[in-house]
């Protein structure tokens, strides 16, 4: 299967959105495009399984590439492993749901859908890149449209938030670039430098160089995934963004960072990852627990979910920092799980906000009476967030805990216990939010005449919930999918530690 389809398809959709006239056509084109992405991704999954059952043991399947700029050794080179496929599936789910919940956008629909689809192009490109330059290129594509999405369609202090988000993410990109450049100039393939991920991994980078450039790449990607203390763009960015942008931002953008930390920082610089693991673990634990406590005090639903994202993304970094097979598996599961769950959460919040025009926990109340469907969606997202078995969050967190506990030292033990403790704090803030906004007496009588979800919202929520439950109830297929990918990474680490 030609992976470039994943880039071409959103591109065609985006262009078609620009060309068609009329609101209705724009919506339909966007929806068809997103649906086609979803179908394509399932085909990809199918072909992947087919290849694997045939016994293909290559690290990356479906590779293809073109020379882009020869003098600098820049290639367009793509390929996937199980981890990338998991992330690609996540992207397709979130984008499809995002188009659905934006169905009744009030202004500038054409531009909005164009940017949304364009973002997905960046994300797909990022997840399939096997060339560091291409990877960086797509990372940038996935950053810039977000500024516009928040600045134009946002709410609240949107200009400030948009600026803050763009600057911090660009700062992250700059660090990433330094890290990548550092790698590039320390390769030597027949006398020339290379950006090729596979070649760099094969060749290895001297440990001294790794130690210099690992922090750049890791912090750079870490900013995307809310690494403490560089997480402050998350609350402002999310709370100002329109629903679909929030979904994309938390569901996918933050995972670009996690994926980058894993694929670039840990895979290409395993020695440094091992060297810096203590610091990573400490920062991750701070993010997990401190993020959870900060969430407890928030009063705006979007802030609650944004801070809880900081806490949940801490698990991704913790899993990566622990550098055991199980923990890294947990990190990957958490990426997908959190992506689906947080998208569902933001979708639910968006649906509530569209109707009540309020996101303040104190003003809402008793929504279960008027909007049982939306309320149930909200409760499910909450339960997934607090790690209830049967939902994906549980599988992810438990895998991270198990993986972290495998390390015998007291330091790792304490870190695991700190991370475990967050399940209690999470329960507190989730139940607070659910208890006072969904349950309880109706506080505002104007809300009594509000209606429940429309077909588009129901479909979007159902899709995301299916994803969450598919991992939560039957996690074995998912671990099977990602296992070869994480094996490759952990093998590199194991070689170094020896």
């Amino acid at each position, binding site marked *: 299967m030609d992976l470039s389809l994943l880039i071409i398809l959103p591109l065609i959709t985006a262009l078609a959105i620009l060309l068609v006239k009329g609101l209705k056509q724009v919506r339909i084109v966007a929806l068809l495009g997103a649906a086609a992405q979803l179908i394509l991704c399932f085909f990809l999954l199918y072909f992947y399984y087919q290849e694997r059952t045939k016994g293909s043991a290559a690290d990356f399947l479906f590779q293809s590439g073109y020379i882009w700029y020869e003098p600098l050794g820049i290639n367009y080179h793509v390929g996937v492993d199980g981890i990338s496929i998991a992330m690609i599936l996540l992207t397709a789910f979130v984008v499809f749901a995002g188009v659905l919940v934006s169905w009744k956008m009030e202004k500038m629909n054409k531009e909005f859908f164009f940017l949304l689809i364009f973002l997905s192009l960046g994300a797909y490109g990022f997840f399939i890149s096997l060339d560091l330059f291409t990877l960086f290129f797509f990372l940038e594509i996935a950053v*810039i449209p977000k*500024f516009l999405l928040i*600045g134009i369609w946002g709410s609240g202090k949107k200009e400030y938030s*948009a*600026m*803050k988000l*763009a600057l*911090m993410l*660009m700062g992250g*990109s*700059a660090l990433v*670039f*330094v890290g990548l450049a550092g790698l*590039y*100039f320390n390769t030597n393939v027949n006398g020339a430098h290379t950006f090729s991920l596979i070649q760099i991994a094969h060749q290895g980078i001297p440990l001294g160089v790794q130690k210099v450039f690992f922090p750049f790449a890791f912090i750079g990607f870490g900013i995307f995934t809310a690494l*403490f*203390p*560089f997480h*402050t763009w998350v609350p402002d960015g999310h709370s100002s963004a329109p629903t679909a942008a929030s979904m994309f931002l938390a569901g996918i953008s933050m995972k670009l960072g996690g994926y980058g930390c894993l694929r670039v920082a840990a895979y290409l610089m395993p020695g440094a990852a091992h060297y810096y693991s203590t610091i990573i673990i400490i920062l991750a634990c701070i993010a997990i627990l*401190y993020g959870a*406590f*900060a969430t*407890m*005090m*928030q009063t705006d639903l979007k802030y609650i979910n944004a*801070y809880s994202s900081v806490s949940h993304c801490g698990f991704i970094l913790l899993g990566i920092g622990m550098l055991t*097979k*199980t923990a890294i598996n947990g990190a990957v599961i958490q990426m997908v799980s959190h992506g689906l769950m947080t998208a569902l959460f933001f979708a639910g919040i968006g649906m509530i906000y569209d109707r009540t025009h309020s996101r303040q926990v104190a003003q809402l109340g*008793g929504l*279960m*009476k008027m909007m049982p469907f939306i309320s149930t969606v909200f409760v499910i997202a909450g*339960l997934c967030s*607090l*790690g*209830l*078995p*049967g939902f994906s969050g*549980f*599988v992810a967190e*438990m*895998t991270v*805990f*198990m993986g972290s*506990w*495998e390390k015998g030292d*007291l330091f790792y033990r304490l870190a695991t*216990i700190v991370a*475990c403790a967050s*399940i*209690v704090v999470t329960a507190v803030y989730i*139940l*607070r939010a659910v*208890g006072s906004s*969904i*349950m*309880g*007496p109706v506080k505002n009588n104007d809300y009594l005449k509000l209606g429940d979800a429309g077909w588009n919202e129901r479909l979007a929520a159902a899709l995301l919930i299916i994803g969450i439950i598919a991992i939560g109830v039957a*996690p*074995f297929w998912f*671990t099977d999918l990602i296992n070869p990918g994480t094996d490759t990474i952990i093998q590199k680490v194991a070689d170094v530690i020896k």
Partner: protein
Amino acid sequence: MPLAGFVILGLFGRKYFKNFSGIIGTGLLLVSAALALYTAYQYFFVNGKVDGAYPSVTAVKYTWLSFSEKVSIDMGIILDPISAMMLVVVTFVSLMVHIFSLGYMKGEERFATYYAFLGLFTFSMLGLVISANLFQTYIFWELVGVSSYLLIGYYYDKPSAVAASKKAFIVTRFADLGFLIGILILAFYGETLDFNTLIQRLTEHQSSQSIAITTASFAGVTALTWGLVLVFIGGAGKSAMFPLHIWLPDAMEGPTPVSALIHAATMVVAGVYLVARLFPLFTLTQAALGIVTFVGLISAFLAAIIACTQTDIKRVLAYSTMSQIGYMMFALGVSGYNGEAGLGYTASLFHLFTHAFFKSLLFLGAGAVIHLIHSNEMKDMGGLRKYMPITHITFLVACLAIAGIPPFAGFFSKEEILLAAFNSNKIVYGIALFTSGLTAFYMFRLYFSIFWRAAGPSPLERGWGEVFHGEGTFSMKLPLVILGACTIVAGLIPFGEYVSANSKPLASHVDPVFSIAPVALALAGILLAMWMYKKESSRPQQVSAALGGLYKTAYRKFYIDEIYLFVTKKIIFNLIGRPAAWIDRNIVDGLMNGIAAVTAGISSLIKGIQSGKVQSYALYFFGGIIALAIIFLYLWK
């Protein structure tokens, strides 16, 4: 045993289809209960003993999630005496509650939701009971917790119900944190999560795992003890043991049949079940058993005292539940593994078994009363024996059973517990004996206050008027009668024959001489309650006035709620949460904004251009990157 496995799977399959209405729900549960009974029958009587002991069979095993080569979650079904017994108890009580609810919940707006939640609960509870894997237990443990949360908060527009459901979930979640870490410890050293393998490896003398877990220690305590105590904390949370009991009385905000099912008969004994399941490991460490005994005893005693002072009938029952579970816990704590020493184990599970019947009967009886009176307060009741004869008689039977009067069920199980305590530790026995007297007192205080005391106003005066519907529907009376009958006969089962610590039959006999003291004390309690509460009088006030501060302290539940409130509100919210949020907004974010401001300042100094447009920033950004690339290209080498 594959047959039994198949049977239970069938039962699962049925449960997965959500029950959308009362009849369907009840019908499905009837099937489940029949299947459970059949399974138990097959297990105990057809397959029977192997080498004089009931075998522990793992019927189904499927790898659900594998963490590493060694540790994985294998979903399975374990059949041994205790799980077979629990299957029967859970399905049977659940069936009774389903039937009762047909009448009790009639006309509720969310009737179907109610039955769906009940179905979810029963499914999770059965899953918990048959778990073959420690982690599987944890999974269902959480599911049970959430179904309890949903059912307590069933009246979601009532703020007190919402608060209670939240409290129940969070307190048990806190305990589950202990459970989780305990699992991590046991799994790490045992290198498995499977119950049978785990127990076999760790109890086996000098196996590498047992050496590892007993030599590793933290803060002077072995890893084994740590693991078991932490697991016990999880059990104590679910079973409302002191000091994690505070959620149980509040949980009475849920519909009464739910209280009968979840907060009396099934979920709250999960902690006892968990300790019993891991009992062979607990016997390896006296420290862990000592903690179990201590916590159980304190809970039994404290709850009995509090129960004497409460006025809400459901809260009295809640504290009584806590007290009885305390009995089960310390019975496990004083038990040994083999032969006669294992009496406590048998007694504990026997009490669990009989308690399930009489306590759910009490709750359903209370439910019938509340259905009629529309109040939980004792002061609104009195003289009800005329209007609800069936409820009256069955309630009396249950009270006699819990007070330990022969020949009702509670007598036999409680005597065994007391005997086990007597054999092991005289102080434990003394406190337990005194508590059993208290039990009789508070139960009959309840009984006389509801059904006797004042003749009470006539139905018309109570406002029942024309719509007086008597005791409730047939579906409400039937479970009362069935449970009443069970309460009378359940004690006669030779329980030790089937359930014992080492799975070998244990002859349990009650010595009449030994029984004199407890029964006499129980009778004294009953007479005291009769003297104080049978007729309207000022005696209760006099007594409480005489006790003064002591009464008030007990009435305020020893101020434990206030202590919790202080810790959570004052310390956690104000000293951790609020500063964390503030620091984040002002210091961390301030730092980031500061960096941005400094950068902006510098750039405006240098360039004098600050358009505020991100496009131009992007331009600079790419410009910078190109510059950086050039620097790298030419200067790095």
